[in-house]
Each structure stands twice: as structure tokens, then as C-alpha cells.
């Protein structure tokens, strides 16, 4: 096995890309299972965040390893940055709307910064 041979590194990158894609797809699948099986809104939100951040990063690393071109990698990094900026905001909005419309029971919360403001 000759490590100076570029074909070996192409094969290694392809196999690593396949592994990353599979991990990302598995996280997406786990989000699907969680969103159906979990009992309440906050638990489901917890499941949804998996493919939004870690799953997306794993899959896009896989795509970058497979494409191996700098313009594509730049745009994939842009996708990750957008997702990291937007998904916390969206989750915050959904969670706050759930609390305000009484879909989240305050008794179940360990820390409740929304209703404990008077303390």
C-alpha cells in the first residue's frame, strides 16, 4: 500500500464521506422517530434540533469530502453558518409561543425564567 498514491486518498475521502452521510441520515431518522413518539412540545423540539445542527454538519462534511472543490465547500460552510444563526432563533420563538399559549405546563419546568420574573 503506497501512501503517496493519490488514488488511495480519494478512496479514503469517499469512504469517510459515506460514513458522515450515514451518520447525518441516522440523526435525521432519529428526529423523525422522536417527533412522532415524544409526548409533549418541548420533548419534540429537543428531538428536532438533532438534524438541524449536528446532522446537517455531518452531512455537509460528507458532501464536502466527496466533492473536494473549494467553491462548494465555501457554500456548504455558508449553509452551516445560516443554520447555526437561524435555528436557535426559530426554536426560541416556538418555545416562547408554546409557553404563552399554555401548551407547556409550568409545573414540568425546572427553570422557568418566563413566569418567575418577579423573584
Amino acid at each position: 500500500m503506497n501512501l503517496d498514491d493519490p488514488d488511495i486518498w480519494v478512496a479514503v475521502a469517499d469512504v469517510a464521506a459515506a460514513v458522515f452521510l450515514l451518520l447525518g441520515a441516522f440523526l435525521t431518522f432519529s428526529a423523525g422517530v422522536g417527533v412522532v413518539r415524544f409526548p409533549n412540545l418541548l420533548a419534540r423540539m429537543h428531538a428536532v434540533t438533532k438534524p438541524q445542527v449536528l446532522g446537517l454538519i455531518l452531512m455537509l462534511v460528507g458532501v464536502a469530502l466527496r466533492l473536494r472543490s473549494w467553491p462548494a465547500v465555501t457554500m456548504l460552510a455558508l449553509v452551516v453558518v445560516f443554520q447555526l444563526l437561524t435555528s436557535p432563533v426559530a426554536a426560541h420563538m416556538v418555545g416562547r409561543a408554546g409557553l404563552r399559549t399554555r401548551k407547556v405546563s409550568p409545573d414540568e419546568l425546572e427553570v422557568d425564567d418566563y413566569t418567575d420574573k418577579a423573584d
Partner: protein
Amino acid sequence: MSVMGIAATVATVLIAAAAVLAIVRLERGPSMLDRTIAFDVLTSTIVGAVAVEAAWSRRTESIPILVVLSLVGFIGSVAIARFAAVEPESERRIRTREEVAAENAAEIAALEAELEAQRRARRRGSVPPRPDDADGEGGAV
């Protein structure tokens, strides 16, 4: 079949299963916010499917779609959480035919009772009840 072919097949199956489960939650609800987060999962599956396709065929044309999707999904969930999260209790689910009929009957009964009360009040106002009129009906006019 190459390593990438096998991985792409398995990943596609997993992503399709996730999309089906997200649609199940999208149908069940029960609230608008549950549907919002199910829609987030659906967006994630679309992003994953486009990524798998790009990795499998080694094409870079579909990468801009990922940029657009990551922004559109954000706008969708924020818009729903901000403007459509408050929903009346009665609109959570579709009512059955019997429930609609019962509610309509109750509404009609309430309307008739109100009309009857108005009629009695008018009668009482125009003809003052006689002292011997015990039930306060105002008697025959």
C-alpha cells in the same frame, strides 16, 4: 455497487422514513406549534436528501438549494410561531357531524329563548300586569 452507492441508498431510506414520520406528526398535531416543528423536520429531510444527491452524483449545482432551504425553513417557523400560534380551543380538531348538529341546535335554542324573553318583555311593557295576574304574564291582550 461502490461504497458511496450503498451509503447513499441507506441514507436515502433513512431520510425517507424520517420524512414519513414527520408527515405523521404534521397530520396529528395536536397544536400548530407541533406542526411547525414537524415541518422543521421535513425541511431537514429535504436538505439531507439534496445533500445525499449532491454527494452521490458529485454535482455542485444543487448546493445553492441548501442555502435557500436553510433560510426558508427559518422564515416559515418564525412566521407561524409569531402570528399563527394562538388558536381557539375549538379549532384544534375537526368536529364530527353529530357535534356540529348539537352545537347548531344549542345555538338555535339560545336564540329562540332570547326572542321569547324579548317578546315577554315587550308584552309586559305595553300592558302592565294586573294585580291578580300571579304569573306576571301580562294576561291575554
